[in-house]
């Protein structure tokens, strides 16, 4: 069977056709997964509804098979496949051949739908406690989204399209920027997050369709939302980490449209997590929660549109193709329009019962939601504004990092202040007096740390640092003191406080840790670009960088200029660093490989610029204090999310929760 094309070329196999066939089968199954269960719900037919689970499993299997086939084509250098030919090369190391599967548009879209299928499978497997009609609706809606995107893949961006009959003997190679560990893991993780928000979306729409927005719905939806949020958090952090070491100039966030496209769903899903808490515990904010779930997923789709259509150009815009843009825009329109229409029809029937006072946990969470949504909106505005101006014919403009920082920093500051208090406030009603008695110590400690920090770092006052560190300390100390108080001073009691609570505390501490990192890096980074020849040295801050020698090196698919630097603190050698300047031979593209000495309190960063005369190089030297804390905070947040997700109340058996269930 595999030598169908034996007469054309002996190496040619039918693997791409199998892949495409599997994708078409997945489309068919996804269509069935939408139609049969939803029809079953309409007719109240249990057996039809029960088809949702096996169909979701089948869909994910076909998608995985399709993805596997594409990977197979890459590993076996099947350059008859156009996508493989333009993104791989025989000299490419095998791990990168595999990651090249999602190295460009077509394959990353296939990954996108495959992950959607896997989330469907996960819902089918882990929702034993879910009543059947709810499950049927959730999987039905996910099937519908799948249909749209598989159709999009097949119609506009088929990764299996052949280059027949003129088969290239060598591929164009993977973009060298993507030949890196960070890029093996960053896209799948981020996509897991994006696509995972589809589950939260499907739950919200299912609840709207069924007209039941209640605590049970919030409880089912919460762990899924948290899971997607964890992936999103880690995915964004990985992207930032990758940009930091791979782009060669030590920036970790650029307010690039594609970064913004990932930050917006993160902000809205963070709001959603908190709003779901209110809906679950108090039965409030129901329609708002639904709206957030719709927005969060819509922003993921918008991100896909912005990246794929090429309307915004950035490092990430692999291809610009108007047809694709129109298709994604249509999907976005159907998804947002349809769900908002449903919302408009159904939401007025949903009344939130229950009251709360101005000072209460509900109010703080409302503030959290408003701020996060405003922040997401500001970023959306800044991202789309250049498009709008261009569209109106008012010239080509760009919105710089300065603007985004001016918007984002104050909002984050208010949010940080409110977070520590909100986590302590009681539901329904609380008082300033009580909050004050619980927080005065944290406030004093925060002020002390904040004022001390700039003197420790630079022996002079810096108001920005005082504010940043003060807020971080307030958040961290406030959280820790609350744990201490709740555990009544005994370490052994901490375990009994509940995973959900501990998760919240760790995630909030993570926010504080990230704020520390951002503040320190923004204010105390030292950077110099200098001309250096072998034998010369340069002092930056407390460190002396000595250019030992320059050399030459050949990798599997690149040639490289390599230099050797010794870094001294006083007379003590800290590390030798070997930054490289690579030239990838297939594309002839130049890449900067920075060399970094990593530390908890500072990174030393050396990267090569351009060769100058007499063996000298333009070198970029940097000292970046607390750099790791930026991503460490994200890891804390993810761990916090994981703990909250594992809380025992989400693992109740069906019998415990379904007592009051009605068969719709």
């Amino acid at each position: 069977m595999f030598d169908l094309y034996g007469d054309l070329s002996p190496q040619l196999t039918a693997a791409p056709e199998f892949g495409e066939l599997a994708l078409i089968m997945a489309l068919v199954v996804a269509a069935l997964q939408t139609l049969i269960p939803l029809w079953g719900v309409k007719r109240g037919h249990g057996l039809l509804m029960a088809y949702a689970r096996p169909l979701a499993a089948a869909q994910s299997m076909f998608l995985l098979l399709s993805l596997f086939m594409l990977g197979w084509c890459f590993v076996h250098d099947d350059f008859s496949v156009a996508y493989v030919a333009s993104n791989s090369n025989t000299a490419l190391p095998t791990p990168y051949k595999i990651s090249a599967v999602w190295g460009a548009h077509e394959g990353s879209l296939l990954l996108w739908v495959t992950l959607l299928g896997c989330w469907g499978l996960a819902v089918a497997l882990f929702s034993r406690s879910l009543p059947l009609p709810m499950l049927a609706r959730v999987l039905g809606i996910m099937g519908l989204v799948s249909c749209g995107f598989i159709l999009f893949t097949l119609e506009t961006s088929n990764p299996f399209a052949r280059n027949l009959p003129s088969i290239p003997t060598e591929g164009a190679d993977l973009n060298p920027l993507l030949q890196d560990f960070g890029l093996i893991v960053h896209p799948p993780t981020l996509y897991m997050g994006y696509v995972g928000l589809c589950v939260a979306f499907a739950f919200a729409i299912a609840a709207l369709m069924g007209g039941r927005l209640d605590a049970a719905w919030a409880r089912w939806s919460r762990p899924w939302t948290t899971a997607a949020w964890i992936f999103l958090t880690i995915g964004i952090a990985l992207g930032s980490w990758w940009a930091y070491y791979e782009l060669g100039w030590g920036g970790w966030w650029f307010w690039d449209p594609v970064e913004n496209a990932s930050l917006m769903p993160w902000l809205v899903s963070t709001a959603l997590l908190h709003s779901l808490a209110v809906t679950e515990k108090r039965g409030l904010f129901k329609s708002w929660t639904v709206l957030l779930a719709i927005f969060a997923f819509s922003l993921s789709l918008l991100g896909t549109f912005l990246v794929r259509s090429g309307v915004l150009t950035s490092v990430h815009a692999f291809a610009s193709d108007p047809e694709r843009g129109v298709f994604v825009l249509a999907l976005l329109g159907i998804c947002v329009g349809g769900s908002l229409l449903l919302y408009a029809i159904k939401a007025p029937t949903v009344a939130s019962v229950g009251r709360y006072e101005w000072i209460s946990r509900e109010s703080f969470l409302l503030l959290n939601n408003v701020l996060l949504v405003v922040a997401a909106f500001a970023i959306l505005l800044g991202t789309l504004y250049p498009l709008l101006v261009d569209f109106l014919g008012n010239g080509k403009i760009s919105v710089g990092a300065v603007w985004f920082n001016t918007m984002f920093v104050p909002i984050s500051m208010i949010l940080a202040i409110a977070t520590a208090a909100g986590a302590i406030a009681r539901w329904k009603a609380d008082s300033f007096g009580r909050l004050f008695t619980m927080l005065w110590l944290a406030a004093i400690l925060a002020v002390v740390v904040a004022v001390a920090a700039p003197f420790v770092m630079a022996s002079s006052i810096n108001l920005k640092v005082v504010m940043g560190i003060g807020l971080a300390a307030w958040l961290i100390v406030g959280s820790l003191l609350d744990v201490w108080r709740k555990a009544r001073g005994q370490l052994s009691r901490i375990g009994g406080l509940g995973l959900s609570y501990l998760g919240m505390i760790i995630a909030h501490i993570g926010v504080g840790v990230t704020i520390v990192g951002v503040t320190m890096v923004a204010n105390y980074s030292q950077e110099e670009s200098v001309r250096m020849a072998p034998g010369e040295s340069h002092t930056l801050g407390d460190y002396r960088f000595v250019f030992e020698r320059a050399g030459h090196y050949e990798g599997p698919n690149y040639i490289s200029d390599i230099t050797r630097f010794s870094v001294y603190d006083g007379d003590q050698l800290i590390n030798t660093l070997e930054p490289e300047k690579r030239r990838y031979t297939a594309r002839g593209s130049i890449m900067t490989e920075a060399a970094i000495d990593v530390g908890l309190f500072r990174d030393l960063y050396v990267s090569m610029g351009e060769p100058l005369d007499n063996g000298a190089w333009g070198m970029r030297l940097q000292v970046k204090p607390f750099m790791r804390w930026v991503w460490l905070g994200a890891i804390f947040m993810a761990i916090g999310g994981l703990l909250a997700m594992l809380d025992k109340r989400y693992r109740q058996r069906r019998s415990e929760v379904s007592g009051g269930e009605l068969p719709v």
Partner: protein
Amino acid sequence: MHPQRKKRLQLILFMVVAIGAAVGLLMYSLSENVNLFQTPTQIANGEVPVGRTIRAGGLVVVGSLKRDDTGLAVTFQVTDGAATVPIHYEGILPDLFREGQGIVALGKLDESGTLQASEVLAKHDEKYMPPEVKHALDQAHEDGKAAMQNPASSN
């Protein structure tokens, strides 16, 4: 008024004021903080005031790159086919910076008409042309055609 309604009204008013203020601030600061792209022709025609931060770009003129002997200062010229602008920059040029390539620089014009760049961007794809540069080239091409058809109106 019913206390619950009153509370809801307060809440809605609060949200309206907060969102209104936010949008107002956002729009105001956007209008203050954007960097307009200017083509070499626009700069040569004196349409760009000195000292204002702009973005300018075009193709790097072949043979125009001059390096300082001791430091990292460079000067080069960019063109849109109709006019050229000198750019001065101190620092490390991006990996894809090459003569003949399209680049975009962020900076301020000085008295002599040189752009003092604080940032030079060249995208990480050898096939990629910054859209602004393409726009500048197209614009200059259009102007050139118009000038040929109607020489009297061109100035």
